[in-house]
Structure formats: C-alpha cells, structure tokens
C-alpha cells in the first residue's frame, strides 16, 4: 500500500492549485438569472485551461487525466473555495451515459459544448407521482416523422430554470414500470416547453417543473436503443450516487472549515462532532482512493451515498449548533445538505439496496 502521489500527479496538482489561487472569485447564486450567467462564464474560464472536464479525452475538451488526478483536482477545487459547478448535471450525469451508450456523432456534437458550458444541461428525471419510485414514470414520447413528440410533466429538475437542454426518460412503448422507457434529450427552449421555477427553502429557484406539450425531439437525440432507457439511465444513477457527483474533496474542504470554525468558537461539548466530521471526510477520501483500482458501481455506490449525505448533514448541523441563529457563510450549505439524504434515491431506498444486494437479505 502506498498513498504517495507520482511526479506527474504532483505537477498537475501544483498547476491546478496555482491557477485556482489566482482565479477563484465569489459569484452570485447560480439559482438567479444573473448568477447563472456568471457561473457559465466561470465554466468557460475553466474550459479555456482544459480544467472543466479534466478526465475526458482531449478531443472533447479534457486532459485524459487519471481518476486519481481527477480526485486531486476536486480536492484542490473545493479547498480553494471555487464556485459550484453549474454544468455538473451534464458533466456528472449525462456525459457518463453518452460515453457508455451514446453514438460518436452524439459525443462529438454534445460533449465539447458541454465542456465549454455553451450548453448547460438540466436533469428531468422525477415526475409528481414518481419520486423514489422512478419506474412509475408517465410522461410519453410518441413516434412522429423524424423523431418523437414529448408529452407530460417533469419536476424537481435541478438547474432547469436557466439551463439550455435537459435529459430524461419517457414511455415510448407498451410494458409497465421498467419496460418501454426511452432515454431522450430535449431543448428547454423548444416549442411546447413550459418551465415553472420552484422556489426552494432558501427562496431561490434551484429546481423547476417542466411541462411538455408535443415537444419535438429529433431521432439523433435518442440515447441508446428505443425502449432500453431504464438500463441506459441506471448507469447514470450509479454515477449520481457514486463518487462523481460528490467527490471527497467537497467534504474534506468543508470539514477543514468546520475545524477552523470550532477553533474560533470552541465548545468542548461539540468537540466530538467536529472531530467526527473530519474523520468522516477523511474516511470517504481514503475509501475513494481504495476504489480507484475498481470503481464503485451499483450497490457499493449506495454505501457511499448514504455515508456522504449523512456526513454532510452532520457537518453542517454542527456548524449551526456552534454558531446559533446567526450563521453567515453556512446557511446555504446547510440547506443544501438537507437535500442529500433525499435526492438520487432516498437513503431509505439505498439501505434496502445495501441489505438486499450486498448482504443478500430477502426482498
């Protein structure tokens, strides 16, 4: 066993650290129209250095960085206090699906624009009656000349208020639940699309409802086979739960901030919670290093999803308990942390998955 970084990774780390140190600045909330464009511009500045998608092939705007280098990038990124990634749903949820199931044409058309944030993607998974139970989707795509017509309603679409395009599952054929679904991409500015922003607890429209009324999707925006959407989407779901969406660097950076906060507001009765947040972030970091040899997928990703989401809540709760009613700099992160045990499959569902698929308990 060896935890040291090779020379190439050390040099990459130094480059990233230096670039971030001289470029990071504070932006308005990405859940406002103005802040969204500020974040798009930030993504473009990252892309100009080939830092927006470091692990992708060079042809799409990346550096073909190793997974280890990607982790190092994330640690540096979060430690620097750099802005949230407005392109994250595209980069972390859609792109892996395109790498696995897309065509060369789709990759060439979609990925470079995503890397430069020329197109920002929203997810369109949930529907009002299908939250944890994603297989009960009802929105449809009906065959038409040269493509498909979407009808129905999606909800809890993160970023949809200001994004350009979206991806989701639609019923295209007979069959119940997991059968007869197709993975489709659509333009949020197409005719027939109505986006209604939903204000979150923090008062900002972090997600939206999308109403679809005969929205045209050309054939080249079907991902994978028609009717095979469930299988195609599940690779994305694994990524959402697994390491890509919540890289350890986010938590090690937050834990360090918490330790600093504790030093300024020491309360011995809260010491253990502070230390446990740091230990938890470190555990997740090392666990991810251990997974580099054989990346997590499926039920193993459920283990980390429960862990990081509850770590995140505990960490932010501790900060608020240290600070009391006036918690500048922590409130937004705290509110966001509360959504962690819910989205990407509630932690209750994840625990079922762990018990049934990793421990073999009966369904």
């Amino acid at each position, binding site marked *: 066993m060896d935890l040291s970084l090779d020379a190439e990774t050390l040099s990459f780390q130094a480059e990233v650290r230096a670039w971030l140190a001289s470029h990071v600045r504070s932006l308005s909330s990405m859940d406002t129209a103005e802040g969204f464009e500020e974040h798009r511009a930030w993504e473009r500045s990252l892309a100009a250095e080939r830092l927006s998608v470091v692990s992708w092939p060079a042809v799409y705007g990346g550096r073909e960085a190793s997974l280890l280098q990607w982790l190092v990038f994330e640690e540096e990124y979060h430690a620097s206090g750099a802005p949230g990634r407005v392109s994250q749903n595209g980069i972390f949820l859609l792109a892996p699906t395109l790498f696995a199931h897309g065509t060369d044409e789709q990759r060439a058309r979609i990925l470079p624009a995503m890397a430069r944030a020329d197109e920002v993607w929203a997810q369109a998974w*949930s529907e009002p*009656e299908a*939250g*944890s*139970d994603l297989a*009960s989707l009802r929105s449809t795509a009906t065959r038409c000349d040269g493509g498909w017509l979407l009808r129905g309603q999606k*909800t*809890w679409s993160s970023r949809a208020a200001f994004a350009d395009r979206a991806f989701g599952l639609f019923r295209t054929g007979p069959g119940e639940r997991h059968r007869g679904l197709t993975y489709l991409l659509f333009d949020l500015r197409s005719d027939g699309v109505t986006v209604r922003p*939903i*204000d*979150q*607890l923090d*008062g900002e429209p972090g*997600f939206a409802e999308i109403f679809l009324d005969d929205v045209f999707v050309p054939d080249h925006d079907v991902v994978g086979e028609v009717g095979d959407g469930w299988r195609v989407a599940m690779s994305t779901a694994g990524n959402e739960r697994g390491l890509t969406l919540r890289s350890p660097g986010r938590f090690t950076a937050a834990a360090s901030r918490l330790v600093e906060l504790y030093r300024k507001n020491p*309360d011995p*009765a*809260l010491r253990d919670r502070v230390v446990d947040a740091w230990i938890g972030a470190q555990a997740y970091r090392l666990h991810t290093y251990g997974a580099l040899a054989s990346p997590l997928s499926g039920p193993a990703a459920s283990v980390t999803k429960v862990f990081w989401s509850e770590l995140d*809540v505990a960490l932010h709760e501790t900060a*608020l*308990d240290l*600070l*009391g*009613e*006036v*918690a*500048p700099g922590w*409130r937004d992160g*705290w509110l966001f942390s*509360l*959504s962690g*045990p*819910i*989205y990407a499959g*509630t*932690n*209750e569902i994840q*625990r079922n998955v762990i018990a049934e698929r990793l421990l073999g308990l009966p369904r």
Partner: protein
Amino acid sequence: MMFTLSAEQTDFASVLHDFLKAGGTDLASLGVDQVTDPVDLVVLFEEVGHHAVAGPLVETLAVVPALIGSSGGSSCSVAFPPLLPHAPEADRYLLVDGDTLREATPITELDSVDPTRRLVELTPGPVIATDAPTGRAFDLGVLTTSAQLLGLGRALLEMTTEHAKARTQFGTPIGRFQAVKHHLANVLIGLELARPLVFGAAVTMSARDVSAAKVATSDAAWQAARVALQVHGAIGYTAEHGLGRFLLQTRALRTAWGSPSMHRARVLEAL
C-alpha cells in the same frame, strides 16, 4: 399532586388552536396579554408553535411583561448580552445587563437562519431600572421557547403522518414502510417525553428544569423537522410547501434563548 392540565387550560388551548387554524392573527383579541402564569404561558406558546406564528411573541408576551409589567400593546424585543447578543425585530427594544434594564436601539440586521425571524444587534439607551427581575424573565423566555418548539414538533409530526398516509410510492402508501413507521414513532416518543419536562419546568420555574425542557424540546422538535423533510422528500424542500416555514423556525428556536449546549451546562451546574 395533579400533573395534568385543568379543563380551563385545555379549553384555552382549543380556542387558540381554532383561532389560529382559521387564520386569526390578532392574538390580543383572545386576551393573551393577560396571561402571566407560567403553565398558562406554556399552553399559549405550544399553540403559537403549533401554527408556526412568527414574530417576537416570546419577548412581547412573556419576557418584557416580566421585566416591566406590561409590553403596552406594541411588539417588544430584548437582548441579554453576552448570552443573547441580538434580538428579534420589534417596535421597541430593551437590553439587559445584570439586573440593569435599558432601552435600546437596533443598529445592524444580522443574517438569520430563519428569514422570517429577523435579528438585530442593539446599542444601549437610557436606564429604565436597576433591579429588574432579569433572571426570571430570562427563564420565562427559555420556557416559552421550549413550549413553542413542542408545538412546532407536534405540527411537523401531524403533517408528516398525514403525508405518509396519502402519498403512494411502489403501489402503496409510504406509511406502510417500516422505515417510515419507525422514523415517525421516534418523533412521537421524543415529543411525548419532552412535553412533561416543559410543564414540570412551568411548575417549578427552576433554572435546572427550564433548561432541561429547552434541551429536550430542541432535540425532539428538530428530530421532528428532519424526519418531516425526509418523509416528504423533494416537495418538503420547496418554499411553496408549508413544511419549510416550520422547519426553519424550529432550527432557529433550537439555538435561540441559549444553545442546547449552554442549557446542558446549566442543568449540570444545578445537579
């Protein structure tokens, strides 16, 4: 020994509940500014919490009257630095320094965890009294905040239980899943055992008992809020759903009038 509410107290709770449920806002019309007995104040503030009524009611109806006899019809607020360095927004402000009571003026608005609970820093004004009963006033603030938390927790449990019965996923009400049942059972247990501490504190008005009530209600109500959000899922995370108002108020009151940690220290000191 008779550790249950009287018929009058139960009736008072019902009247308050019906009034607030029907959208009533002018609590003074129910004579709440005449309430001074600590047990009656607990009855009042449990319903205030039960409906997540916003505003400096603890200060106006319980704390300031204990300091100066009456709040005189306008909304009042008070800070007890260094323990409570800031105060919720109101028409009139007081500042406590030991046994000395002063008028005060707001200077800066602070970034509150609950946007409906605006907080200000105060600067001291003229002295009103030099031997004010500040200890009892502080404890009344803690006690009525505990009662409010109890009511908030109860409301959160009620709305979440209803949601769990109505919302279906995987072809069945989610309230049939054992995980949801156990979450809600834990909330009920926490609130059910916190409740007698609040009334017990109202009877004794000792620092030990008042602080114990604050600790237990802070934990029980916040557990209720966490479970409420988790069981509601994304819908509970929207500003449109009522849950958020209860959740943010609970989070703010958990550390208002002294953090759980401070109150645990006070309990230990008294043992």
